[in-house]
């Protein structure tokens, strides 16, 4: 059962008590390395999760209240059909504004693929109309029927068809990031438990001596628990720091370059990053405490 008092006692620094356990090179290095590697991975999992969250939010917020109308008509009819479509749109309940994109705006949309010097005037491109909706939105089926009658070359794209799977994917990616962090924490706990088991088994003689002179189990466990928690904390601090540096080394992108270059920590996300080392230490603390309890029970 969880005992708050003995847990607090275990956390209390006691130099002499810590010295009773001999330094063990192998388990020390294993714990340090595990905590380092796991924290490094945790930083990336966290960055992935936070970036996926941002993308999902952005797509959800920015695109939810907008639609696009495409006029694909022969060159002579584009202006007429555009006018007709705009008339329909401006009289449709649930639409705040409807605006035909200028040639410059259409060029800017194509610039990432074809460059900024594209002779757009010479291409048979459809005219795009940007629609801004109210929070309640409009009746898409009714609008399509009206457009079919008054501007037959107009095709309504309410973004739902491609937006929903993207938001779902981003949401799952965010979940995957958090699941990875949970797995990383579990794996850290498992590795520290193994290392602590090895250290405790290797120090069976030390434990026998301590018991001979009247040491309580809490005292013996504390010496191991503090050591492993400190090692995990140190390894995790270095791992987190290295992870942050690696994140900064990813080339920064503009708004248009997308998800990969957005793999960074922003705002409140830093709080989670700062929490990685102490959480690693805490995982190591409880893992070692669990291992110590079991080994001391077996050796009794």
């Amino acid at each position, binding site marked *: 059962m969880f005992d708050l008092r003995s847990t607090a006692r275990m956390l209390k620094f006691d130099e002499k*008590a810590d*010295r009773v356990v001999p330094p063990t090179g192998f388990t020390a290095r294993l714990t340090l390395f595990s905590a380092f590697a796991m924290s490094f991975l945790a930083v990336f999992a966290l960055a992935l999760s936070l970036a996926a969250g941002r993308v999902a939010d952005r797509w959800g917020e920015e695109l939810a209240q907008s639609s696009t109308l495409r006029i694909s008509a022969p060159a002579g009819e584009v202006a007429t059909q555009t006018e007709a479509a705009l008339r329909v749109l401006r009289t449709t309940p649930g639409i705040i504004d409807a605006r035909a994109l200028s040639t410059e705006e259409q060029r800017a949309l194509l610039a990432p693929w074809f460059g900024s010097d594209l002779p757009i005037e010479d291409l048979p491109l459809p005219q795009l109309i940007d629609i801004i909706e109210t929070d309640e939105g409009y009746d898409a089926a009714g609008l399509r029927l009206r457009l079919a009658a008054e501007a037959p070359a107009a095709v309504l794209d309410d973004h739902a068809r491609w937006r929903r799977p993207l938001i779902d994917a981003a949401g799952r990616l965010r979940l995957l990031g958090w699941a990875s962090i949970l797995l990383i924490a579990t794996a850290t706990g498992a590795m520290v438990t193994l290392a602590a088991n090895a250290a405790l088994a290797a120090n069976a003689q030390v434990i026998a001596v301590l018991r*001979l002179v009247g040491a*309580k189990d*809490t005292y013996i466990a504390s010496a191991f628990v503090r050591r492993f928690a400190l090692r995990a904390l140190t390894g995790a601090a270095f791992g987190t720091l290295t992870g942050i540096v690696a994140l900064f080394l990813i080339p920064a992108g503009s708004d248009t370059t997308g998800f990969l270059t957005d793999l960074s920590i922003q705002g409140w996300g830093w709080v989670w990053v700062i929490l990685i080392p102490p959480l690693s230490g805490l995982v190591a603390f409880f893992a070692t405490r669990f291992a110590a309890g079991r080994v001391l029970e077996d050796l009794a």
Partner: protein
Amino acid sequence: MIELENVAYSYGGGELLTDMSLSVPPGSFHFLTGPSGSGKTTFLKLCYGALQATAGHVRLFDRDVRGLGRDDVALLRRKIGVVHQDCQFLDHLPVTENVALPLTVSGQDADGADANLKELLAWVGLTSRADALPPELSGGERQRAALARAVIMSPDVILADEPTGNIDWEMSQRLLTLLVELNRMGKTILVATHDLGLIRAAKAQVQTRVLRISNRRLQMAGADL
């Protein structure tokens, strides 16, 4: 102080000790003898709670060991100093810290501890070896360091398991002198040994009672001892 009532101890299906009863009064000096493998070490371990009797009752300081948790046994052990044949030290710590270990684990190593420690090391003749590591000590020095560790908490009882097993005659006489001194200070001493010379030398200095384990049972030793 230490009481055994119809105590038996079994291990691996065989009974090692059977129907043992004993009362060790305060201030007494007992020897426990018997051939190798007769169960002297097991008997001592029952006396300081390192093993639990499989039958009967062991009472330490009027408390039945059977009903005690491990922490309670640890607290009782602080009243009992134990000297093992193989001494059992923490090899990475110097003699001083090994001797002070009972104080360290009980959180008593504060004011005045250093002075007591120096006095104790002088008493067992280890002042010059205070900073040595246990593997650097001779057999006799290890035994004396173990005795110093056993008495640093000023326990009421001192149990010694073959304390002269690995040391020469001269050193064993020195160790006996220390044990006799402790007994004269009112400490209860129980020594397991097959060294009859040690028992005879002790009988010449203090009143002792000699017990023998024979055929898994505890008996009073004959007049030849």
